[in-house]
């Protein structure tokens, strides 16, 4: 009985994240359009795009290797698994113990690894630009992320997301400087990792400062669909990560009654919506920065994370 419910919850989580990801992206786009006094496309546009892409045939460059073809699926799988392990509406998922926060970060890392390789595979200059910049950004974003993980994990005494979420909910953590720093760091990292303004501009192509889009330039058809979907999943993942770390309210738990799950789901939807609105607002109000100012941006994140950890190490009360 227990097992069945857990399986159900876990499965539900996986389906939900998959289902919600395009919607979230569509919603963000819609909000941005609104903020920019445009009507914008419907929030379901991403689904239509995906469907169209899936139906189209895939065009491959002559000298595309097997890596180029398999990369999208690997990327998608890695991100999906990662997303499946982040508590969205319920903590204490069945398989949550199979990978902790560090492993999730690493999973995203492997996704990025293959994406960057795919960018280099065709041997075009644009792909190269994209991969090299992506890796440069990542090489700064990942340590910042790890530092953030340190902070949180030290407060919660664990790197297991479910445990952290529970501690954050119940144990009287209270407001902590280091937590705040970590939160800011995570947000900055999230912005960078998802290639949002000001680091990157998801809604543009022919621009020499583009990063993510440059890598996936050669993709088309179902491969592109996979890439798009994984990007949307990644965005969802980050927002739900922020939510479950710093706003873990309403999360259902193993022993809680079935109703709690629906409450959790509702809370989750709300959190996502808020996150999306904030993101859109942020993106409309800030301007894209030069690529070589990105290191400073992420360096700040790294420093914040490190500061938070140091504060914790030095005194456990801050």
């Amino acid at each position, binding site marked *: 009985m227990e097992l069945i419910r857990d399986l159900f919850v876990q499965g539900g989580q996986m389906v939900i994240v998959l289902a919600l990801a395009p919607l979230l992206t569509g919603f963000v786009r819609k909000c941005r359009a609104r903020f920019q006094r445009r009507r914008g496309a419907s929030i379901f546009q991403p689904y239509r795009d995906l469907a169209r892409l899936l139906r189209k045939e895939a065009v491959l460059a002559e000298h595309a290797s097997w890596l180029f073809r398999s990369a999208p699926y690997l990327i998608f799988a890695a991100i999906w698994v990662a997303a499946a392990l982040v508590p969205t509406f319920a903590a204490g998922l069945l398989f949550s113990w*199979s990978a902790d926060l560090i492993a999730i970060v690493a999973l995203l890392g492997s996704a990025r*690894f293959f994406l960057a390789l795919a960018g280099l595979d065709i041997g075009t200059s644009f792909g190269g630009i994209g991969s*090299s910049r992506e890796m440069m950004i990542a090489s700064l974003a990942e340590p910042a992320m790890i530092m953030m993980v340190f902070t949180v994990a030290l407060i919660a005494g664990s790197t297991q997301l479910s445990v952290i979420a529970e501690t954050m909910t119940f144990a009287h953590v209270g407001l902590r400087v280091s937590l705040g720093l970590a939160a800011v760091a995570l947000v900055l990292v999230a912005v960078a990792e998802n290639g949002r303004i000001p680091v990157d501009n998801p809604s543009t192509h022919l621009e020499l400062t583009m990063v993510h889009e440059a890598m996936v330039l050669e993709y088309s058809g179902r491969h592109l669909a996979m890439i798009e979907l994984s990007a949307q999943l990644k965005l969802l993942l980050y927002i739900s990560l922020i939510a479950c770390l710093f706003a873990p309210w309403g999360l259902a738990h193993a022993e809680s009654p079935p109703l709690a799950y629906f409450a959790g789901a509702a809370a989750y939807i709300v959190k996502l919506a808020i996150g999306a609105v904030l993101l859109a607002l942020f993106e409309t109000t800030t301007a894209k920065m030069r690529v070589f100012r990105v290191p400073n941006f992420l360096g700040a994140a790294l420093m914040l994370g490190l500061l938070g950890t140091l504060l914790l*190490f030095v005194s456990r009360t801050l």
Partner: protein
Amino acid sequence: MALVIVLASVAALLIANLLAIAIARTEFGSRAIYGTTFIVTSFAFATGAIRLGAPASDLVLPIGLPWLGAHFHLDPLAAFFLAVVNLGGAIASLYAIGYGEHEAEPARVLPFFPAFLAGMNLVVVAADAFTFLVSWEFMSLSSWALVVSHHRERENVRAGYIYLIMASFGTFCLLLAFGLLAGASGGYAFDTIRQSHPQALASLVLVLALLGAGSKAGLVPLHVWLPLAHPAAPSHVSALMSGVMTKVAVYAFIRIVFDLLGPPEWWWGLVVLALGGATAVLGVLQALMQHDLKRLLAYHTVENIGIIFIGLGLALAFRVNGMVFAAALALTAALLHVLNHSVFKSLLFFGSGAVLTATGERDMEHLGGLIHRMPKTAFAFLVGAAAISALPPLNGFVSEWLTFQAIFLSPTLPQWGLRLLVPVIGAALALSAALAASCFVKAFGITFLGRARTPQAEQAAETDGFSLAAMFALAALCLLLGVFPGLAIDWISPATGLLVHGHMPAQRFLPWLTIIPIAESRSSYNGLLVFLFITISATLMVSAIHRFASRAVRRASAWDCGTPNASPLLQYTAGSFAQPIRRVFGTVIFRARERVAMPLPGDARPAALAVEMHDVPWETLYAPIAFAVSMVSRRLNAFQFLTIRQYLSFVFFALIVLLLGIAIWS
């Protein structure tokens, strides 16, 4: 018994070594020799792997120091490193059965290869200072001979020279360390040393051990020889030097500091941690700047050594404060990384060797597109690259994850210095991991992906079966160690038990072979499930899409934002790939400067971009020493050109001085 087997295999290797001198030039010489070494080292590997759990055994041979004899000792630690050494040795031999065929002058390689293996084996089982140092230096000397085997390039001879100097320096440091440990009475046997812990100058011993073992392992700033020497050797030897010999150095450090040396001071951990962190970051940054494939790999060895020493430093710090389990965790992480690194670094060097034989190129800028010509090699190399970049579910990630877990335990350390340093080290570790990932995107992407940049790369062909077998064996190991880390951890635990008197909780009975360092509530990781999830969901997606959505594929020329495709030389190069990172870190660490010569309008000359970078450790540490030596020798050389009368006056003055001494003294 096990020791007898080990020594017997060493003897067999030495015999093979003598044999090689005779048959090196014959047709089947190389196959015969490498086959022998393969069999012998496989036996030795089995011995080590099985004996890991068993109680220690001793053996004394009537050689070595006359009144002491040669002591040999096989305890779990030795057994572990024995297994690592011989695993590397066996697979390198397997690889070399094929690779050795391409050797131009086998007579310069074959005799020294078995000797090198024998030396490493002896170091691990030696149990008195003399035997240890003899084997140690024997190892260095034979590897030196292998480094200079391609002696017609001046670079290699120079590399060998620098290597030999650093090796001798390290040996002398260890010699001094043992001198302190043994005391004036000369109790050189390790047992004697263990009984009498020399409290005086123990810290000096640590410093000497760091210098001695570190110079061989490649700790910054003693690493300068490594990126020169490792690539100079034939690839299977490079694999051994990078993957295995550096581990022997780690063994030496562990043996001295954890086993022979008495109770540690708290700041030892601090020093080791700082060195490890610096080594990790500097190594990977240096690697990013390289475009010689083998040199890049060599610099990555430096980085991984840094990661291993981070683990060791943590273990020391925990051990001082009696946190047994934490120490065991850190040490396990370090040892596991020793194993992992030896696996994937050998794999990567094999791959580079295959590329070298197929194209005759080590320079990535002249390669590209090899994934089409040599797909199998490419796949194996990709696995290795993913493993060294610490990507789940492969083995590199497990050891780094364990190191992180150990770091999480450090806030409970009482010393402020450690508390302040450890998070920074954590950041450094994360940074090096991320940079390693980007470095291997570059390495694999530029070498194997894209389009061929030169005819050699165009006409490359897949390498031979033995090499492929070796590479795939290692690739499989990368995956297995990543998916079933629990088994490896349990396998190692006797060694940690020996050194820190405690070990991690047994892992092998946990459901789904999860690894749980401390408690499930704290952290857990399950490589197997992650692997299964990824494969399942990927296949699921593929099948679903191919089933319900389109599966049609059309080949066309690359889109590239509509720019018609120019020559392959317009691809992103290694240099351009590393440029953003160089801009971020390089200006400080390499004093990198970019100069753009932009001709005036109407000037026909092409614009030029020149980048100058400095090898800071070399320029600040080694160049001055070399200069000083040459200066002094130039000054002293005047004494060669004096007249007899002046020489006589030396005698005269010496006499006067001594007489004065007598007159004053009595």
